[in-house]
């Protein structure tokens, strides 16, 4: 190789590097977009995509830390086991029931509270604060408080029942009563969250629309159904997405109130996942259960998103 050709090679390499550097320092639109998105993409990949993939992979393994045996690929065996597991069906049914009861319950109560808080009070902060407190309370704390409320001997619920002449109940001995107590607690806790979001939505509805409806002849009830509710729909859908996903993952409140009992009558899917992975250290089966919960959440979100996009399409 002559000195000249060697020099040409070096010059070419320098030119290539300079071009790369200038692309980095003065990137075109696509490169700039990619560069700006990169940190978020890396973060999402690290905290969402990787764990989900790992979860999926683990769900195909026989991986129990108590047996000491090495992980073994078992295909869909964990899912097969799930189909034959009565506790799984019980926990799934409980989770779905809790979602079906507490999400609409919290929506109705939250909507009522938001409408109340939106009234023209002279001093608004006590109303807003009282809405905020249940939401700000940790879930396990709320579970503990309500476990005391429903205590058969010194709970306030039985005390009130006795005062109005009704017999008290041993709430956590009966599967139905224990379930009802849990649903009530979740509804109380979640309705303040719903109320906060709906209140924010209510405040975006211009007052002039109500004034126009007043002039048009619509009374308060008609205004609610013709103006408030339709205009709140996007807000409500967003609140429902958040709330439904949280309800599908219900753990803290039943864990603190009943521990899933009596028996497994109030166990939820999240509690059963926790039991399998943390208590029994059966990571393979626990992961398979978590995959089911993940798919359930995704399906619900997809339905809600379709509702929103359907509405936007209609605009």
């Amino acid at each position, binding site marked *: 190789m002559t000195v000249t050709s060697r020099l040409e090679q070096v010059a070419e390499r320098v030119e290539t590097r300079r071009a790369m550097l200038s692309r980095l320092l003065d990137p075109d639109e696509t490169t700039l977009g990619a560069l700006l998105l990169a940190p978020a993409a890396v973060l999402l990949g690290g905290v969402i995509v990787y764990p989900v993939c790992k979860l999926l992979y683990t769900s195909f393994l026989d991986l129990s830390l108590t047996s000491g045996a090495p992980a073994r690929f078992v295909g869909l065996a964990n899912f097969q086991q799930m189909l034959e597991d009565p506790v799984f069906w019980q926990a799934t049914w409980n989770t779905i029931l809790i979602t079906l009861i507490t999400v609409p319950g919290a929506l109705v109560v939250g909507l009522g509270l938001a409408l109340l808080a939106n009234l023209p009070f002279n001093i608004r902060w006590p109303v807003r604060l009282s809405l905020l407190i249940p939401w700000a309370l940790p879930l396990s704390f709320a579970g503990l408080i309500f476990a005391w409320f429903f205590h058969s001997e010194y709970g306030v619920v039985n005390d009130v029942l006795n005062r109005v002449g009704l017999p008290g109940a041993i709430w956590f001995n009966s599967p139905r009563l224990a379930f009802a107590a849990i649903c009530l607690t979740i509804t109380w806790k979640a309705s303040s969250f719903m109320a906060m979001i709906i209140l924010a939505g209510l405040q975006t509805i211009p007052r002039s629309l109500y004034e126009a409806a007043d002039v048009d002849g619509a*009374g308060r009830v008609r205004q609610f159904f013709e103006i408030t509710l339709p205009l709140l729909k996007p807000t409500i859908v967003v609140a429902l997405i958040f709330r439904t996903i949280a309800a599908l993952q219900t753990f803290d409140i039943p864990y603190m109130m009943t521990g899933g009992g009596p028996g497994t009558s109030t166990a939820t899917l999240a509690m059963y996942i926790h039991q399998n992975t943390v208590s029994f250290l059966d990571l393979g089966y626990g992961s398979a259960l978590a995959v089911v919960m993940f798919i359930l959440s995704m399906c619900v979100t997809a339905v809600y998103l379709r509702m929103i996009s359907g509405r936007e399409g209609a605009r």
Partner: protein
Amino acid sequence: MASVSLCKLDKSYGSYRVVKGIDLEIADGEFVVLVGPSGCGKSTTLRMIAGLESITGGEIRIGERVVNALPPRERDIAMVFQDYALYPHKTVRENMGFSLKVRGASAEEAEAKVAAAANMLGIAHLLDRRPGQLSGGQRQRVAMGRAIVRRPQVFLFDEPLSNLDAKLRGEVRAEIKRLHRAIGTTIVYVTHDQVEAMTLADRIVILRGGDIEQIGTPDEVYNNPASVFVGGFVGSPSMNFAKAKAAGGLLDFADGNRLPLAALGGCAMSAVDGREFIVGIRPEHFTTAATDTGLNCVVEVVEPLGSDTLVHFSIGGSTLTARLPPQARPTPGEALWIGLDPRKIHLFDTSTERVVH
């Protein structure tokens, strides 16, 4: 259609009195414009007529009925709001037909009335769109359509053109005037724009600080302003004001300019020596023609507008504006004799600012 009568109408928020016992009679079919600067109480007055604002004192009558305690829906009025207040989730057809539906009209009747109103306003092709798909001018027409579809006794307009650009404002203004001529319903219209007031009104009510400053036809308030405020508010560019003292049958300006008092018509004879006045002269009443009466001035700024030329100059410490013909092009710094028609000069009392002549 119905007359509207306001009697000692009063509105206070706490100790702050927004409307101070105003009296106003609006005849059946009349187009009355409430005009004034921000905070003068014009919108509050309109909202009290609509029933959207409670009244602190006085009485409102629509036709023969006292409506003080009636909710808006029982007053048989329709209102066009500043932000149009169209229901964003309803189509134009549903927006316009809403009041009919609420009042129990049949679907066929509502459809026919909506179609008639839409044809009148040229929005028939927009009936299936939602407000979000309309331009500002189209929304404005829909808001008017919603108001006329029910044929109420009184229309109330709350600054309906303030969100439109100047060109569109002119178009819609003409449309509102046509609409009034076509349906003849009583209209109470609120604006802060004196051009809208002058062009639309049968009568203008000029409000200031919650009080009525003057009521009159556009010609009356333009030609005979009751106060410095009205003179300055009506007309564009606004009326010029400068202080002058009566002395020896003349009005003396601080810079030595003089106008003969005798030229001001009989009323000016009440002026006495030594009394100071605020002299009001409209920019369009100056002339470059050779006249006996006029002012010596030095030109400060010249603004050629194409149709006219605005010339700014100082007299007695006040800056005045003259609207001269387009061919008049004095140069800044040039000494100029600007003539004026002495019959067009207004004199105001310096302390009350009310008109003397």
